[in-house]
Each structure stands twice: as C-alpha cells, then as structure tokens.
C-alpha cells in the first residue's frame, strides 16, 4: 500500500482531467504524477530523510506529498504561523530534511538546523514538463506517509505518525474511486499542516474531484473563489463557516448556488451557525465530519439526510442530532467507556474509543497507544444515543472537577450560547480553595447587546444545576482560537488566572 497508488489509479482512470488548480496554474492527474516522479528523484538524491513543507496551499503541497510517498520519505507539513524558534525545535526532530518553503520565507529558513531549503517556485520549475517515470515506490503499508505535529493545545507539539496503510484505508473505506462527476470541484482552504488538508488531497484525487486551492483562508477570498471556480464541494472549520455566513448575510440576498456539498469539522460547530448556514445556502447539503489527526481524519459523519431530518423534525431526540457528529463510518467502530474501561449503555457519558484500519494512534518516539484489541482512546468525552449517533462533550482533559462532581465545559457553554446576548463563550475550571476547581466563563457579547454577570448566572442556574453556574464571568472582545478553529482553552484559563 502506498499513497502513490491512489494517484496512479487516477491517471489510469481520468489522467487528462484537471487535478488541482492554484490561481492561474493547474496540473492534470498525469502532470501531477509526472511532477511527483521528478520531485521524488530530487528528494532521493538529496540524502534527506524527511520532506517537509512550510507553505500556504500551493501546487507544491500535492506534488511534495506524492513525491514523498514515491521516494519513501515521510511528508512533514509545518505550520507557517510558527515562530523561527518553534520551527527550529521541529526541524531538529526531522533532520536531515528537504524543506520546501514559500519564496518569501525561504531565506529566513535557511538557518534551520538540518534543513536543505528549496523555495516552492524552484521545486515546481524543476517538475514542469517532466516525463512520467516508471512506478518505483515500495508497497510497504507500514512506511510512514505523514508526520503531523499536533497543534499543541496541551503542551509541546507531538508528531502524529500516519502510515500509508492508515491513510489508504481511510480513502478506500470512505471514497468511491472516480465517484465524482466531471463538473465537481472541491475548494480547499484548510492549511496543509492540518489532517483535513491531507485528507482533502488524497480523497479528491481518488474520487476524481478537481481541487481548487485557496492559499490561505479569508471569507472574501473564499466566496470570491467559490463563485469564480464554480466550487461544488468544500470543507470548512466552524470559524470559517461563521465568517462566510456573516459575509453572505452582509451582501443582502447573496448565495452560492453552485455549491452543493459543504462538510465541516475540526471543532465544535455552534448550533446557531449551522442553522444560519442551512437557511442562507438552501441548495447545499451539509455533512459534519468528526475525526482526529490520529485517526487519519474522519471517523464519523452526520450526513445531509440527517441534517434535513433533524432540522424539520418535531421529535426532540431527532432535532438534537443536529448537535451530534453523526454515526461512525462503516469501516470504523466506536465505543464509549467509563473511567474503569467498561463499555457503557446508550445515553451514558464516557470516553470515546475507536477502532479501524485507518486509526494510527501513534506518536513519533512514543510508539503506538492502541491497545491489544486495536482500540484507540481519543481523549474526547461523549455518548452514543439509542440510534447510534455520537455526541461529543469535549476533551476529557478539559473536564472541570468541582467538589467531586465532573462537568464538561461544553454543556455549560451551550446554555450560555442560548442566551440572546451571548455571541461566543468559553468555560474553564480555575483553582478554588473550597471546591478544588470552580467554574469560570469568558463571554463575548453579541453586537449591540448587553447583559450583566448576575443575569447570566441566573440564566445558567435556571437551566442547569446550581453547581454548574459560573462563579466568575468575564467579558471579552473575542476568544483565542488557533487558525483551524480550535478554541485555546489554556489561554483563556491563563488570562483568567492572571487577572485574579
């Protein structure tokens, strides 16, 4: 098994079709294959052990991804928002590496330890017009395909190991070969260092769905590109969708009639945002995808039919499913376990465990965290309802323990968000002498609205147990998110502690 096999099949099936476009430049599947072969030769000749890239979405991303697979070197997409100091620490861990860089960063990255820097345009220039090489990649599924440094919201970045067999299994289990129509175009705006960016490339290539890359996300550029390129499919994280809907609403009755499938994931989607999006884009179907880096992307989906059924049902249990992440993929099993490791019944909360060929659960230097039966502990809390829909409570590490009572921030946040004056909020635990931990909340007010602390406390007390009422509430202009929409709770907490 090798990722290159997916591209090779696309070449056999529909090689002359456009595979990927970035602005005015594009590659067909045949050209992408030829470019990957040429770049693989360069990589093999370099003597480097890893192929890293520090770039926005550009043609160099798929070219280097497939070249790495061909040459048998792990592909390491790096976050272009990291400081030189942070990058230096990561570069040491993957030395010696060939580092493909955005031209404006190439010079400053030359000092990184163990990195031979090649700027993106030089790499691409060397692959233009390349003749397709004979396939020569290893079919070793155990070889490492991608090393992804996790966002590090809970400490120093860990390098998640994704082997060829994980990602290929994911694609084979969730995508039909050549299943996309010739008119289909996926707009890819998630950064290349996110697992969703990697999954978007491999899945689209296998489906035969043209990729249009957005170098970096902004709502204006996204909407403009979606219109110009007649995008039919797109994956977005919740913060992106919120900004897109804001923009469309500010443009009067603007819609995107070509866009027929929007999938979202990467963080909790506020109910209000998805409901607004469904109203604003009635032609589009919505899919919620839940997955982790360690599971090679998606493991559960709430599909378009589920969305429609939930939005139009009078049954509260069915309506509630709009807040779920749907049901596991057919190729994946999900279990909920209690703190002692026993499976719990439907409706009971616990930790989400997952098993399947696509699940890697491995970190560089730390080995696999998968147990003897193949199960991976996600560290996400949640429950399955009677029909098998998976609901998430949030990260287990974020659970607040107040006087022996466990509470998940998500439940309290949902109640706060239901208040008309609350636009966004984050609930965290802060140290408390009496209770061990106390509940605190940072709240962003909706524009033009006002509410005081006492009224918000009363609002929560009326709807949840009084122990879950935030003891402290502060107001903020905005909350800290990373660029892929993940709320940085540690920062919220640190700022609260600094002020007290």
């Amino acid at each position, binding site marked *: *098994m090798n990722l290159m096999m997916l591209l090779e099949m696309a070449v056999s099936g529909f090689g002359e079709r456009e595979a990927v476009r970035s602005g005015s430049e594009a590659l067909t599947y045949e050209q992408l294959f030829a470019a990957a072969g040429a770049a693989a030769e360069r990589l093999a000749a370099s003597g480097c052990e890893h192929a890293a890239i520090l770039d926005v979405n550009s043609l160099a991303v798929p070219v280097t991804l497939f070249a790495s697979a061909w040459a048998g070197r792990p592909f390491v997409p790096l976050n272009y928002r990291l400081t030189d100091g942070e990058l230096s620490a990561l570069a040491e861990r993957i030395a010696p590496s060939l580092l493909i860089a955005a031209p404006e960063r190439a010079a400053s990255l030359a000092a990184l330890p163990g990195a031979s820097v090649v700027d993106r345009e030089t790499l691409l220039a060397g692959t233009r017009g390349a003749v397709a090489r004979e396939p020569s990649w290893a079919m*070793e599924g155990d070889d490492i395909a991608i090393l992804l440094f996790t966002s590090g919201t809970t400490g120093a970045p860990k390098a998640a190991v994704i082997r060829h067999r994980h990602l290929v299994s994911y694609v084979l289990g969730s995508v*039909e070969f050549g299943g996309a129509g010739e008119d289909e175009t996926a707009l890819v705006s998630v950064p290349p260092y996110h697992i969703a960016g990697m999954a978007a490339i491999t899945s689209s290539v296998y489906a035969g769905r043209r990729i249009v890359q957005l170098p970096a996300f902004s709502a204006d550029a996204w909407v403009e590109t979606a219109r110009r390129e007649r995008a039919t*499919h797109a994956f977005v994280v919740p913060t992106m969708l919120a900004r897109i809907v804001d923009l469309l609403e500010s443009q009067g009755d603007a819609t995107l009639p070509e866009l027929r499938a929007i*999938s979202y994931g990467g963080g909790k989607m506020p109910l209000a945002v998805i409901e607004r999006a469904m109203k604003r884009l009635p032609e589009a*179907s919505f899919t919620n995808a839940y997955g982790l880096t360690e599971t090679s992307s998606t493991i559960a989906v709430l599909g378009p039919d589920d969305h429609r059924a939930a939005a139009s049902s009078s049954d509260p249990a069915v309506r509630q499913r709009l807040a779920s992440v749907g049901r596991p993929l057919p190729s994946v099993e999900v279990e909920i376990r209690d703190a002692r490791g026993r499976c719990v019944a439907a409706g009971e909360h616990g930790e989400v465990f997952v098993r399947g060929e696509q699940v890697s659960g491995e970190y560089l230097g730390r080995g696999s965290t998968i147990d003897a039966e193949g199960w991976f502990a996600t560290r996400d809390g949640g429950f399955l309802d009677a029909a098998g829909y998976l609901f998430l409570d949030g990260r287990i590490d974020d659970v607040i323990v107040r006087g022996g009572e466990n509470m998940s921030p998500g439940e309290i946040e949902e109640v706060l968000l239901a208040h008309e004056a609350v636009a966004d909020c984050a609930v965290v635990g802060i140290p408390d002498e009496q209770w061990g931990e106390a509940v605190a909340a940072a709240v962003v007010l909706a524009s033009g609205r006002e509410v005081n602390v006492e009224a918000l406390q009363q609002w929560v007390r009326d709807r949840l147990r009084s122990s879950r009422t935030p003891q402290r509430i502060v107001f903020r202009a905005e909350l800290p998110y990373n660029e892929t929409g993940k709320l940085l709770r540690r920062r919220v907490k640190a700022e609260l502690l600094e002020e007290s």
Partner: protein
Amino acid sequence: MARLKTGTRLRSAVCSTQVMIVAAPDAEVELTCGGHALIDAAATPGEDLALSPDAAKGTTLGKRYVSPDGKLELLCLKAGQGTLALAGAPLALKEAKPLPSSD
C-alpha cells in the same frame, strides 16, 4: 496456491489486470485471473500462457472484488480482460454504499 498478504500488489499472468490485496484469509488460496495464477507485480509472466476463454469477463479499474465469505477482498488497480477467481469460482463485484463527501 499462495498465502496472500494485505497491501501487496499482484498482476495477471495473461492480461493487464493488477490488483492490491485489501483483505486476505489466513490460509493458502488459489487466486487466478484469466484462468492463471496471479503473479508478483514486478514479475514477468511466462510467454506460453493464454487467457482462458471461460475466464474472460474482464476487470474494472477501482472496483472491489470479494469472495463469497468476504474474507478475500481485492482492489483493481489496472483493468484487464481476465476474470478474477478464487479456487475457480469468480469473485463478485462489491457494491459500494455511497458516503457523503467529508473532505
């Protein structure tokens, strides 16, 4: 007869068919295409072999082929004229249930 390993690539000895083993039974099996045993993808087929006329229904790129018990599953990487068969019995085309695009 051969024991198959998941993830390996094999080719037909008599047509252009190439497959990858997606799932394999834990036993020695007789896997053929066009009436002749599949060989390693890098191997050169013998010249005296010919496509068997009663095993020439063809393979389709990107389709999955499964044995009746589901223990053997192949993915077609290159199409050809031969019929894939396990111990002489043709493998069935596996119908894929479409999933919503999540990427």
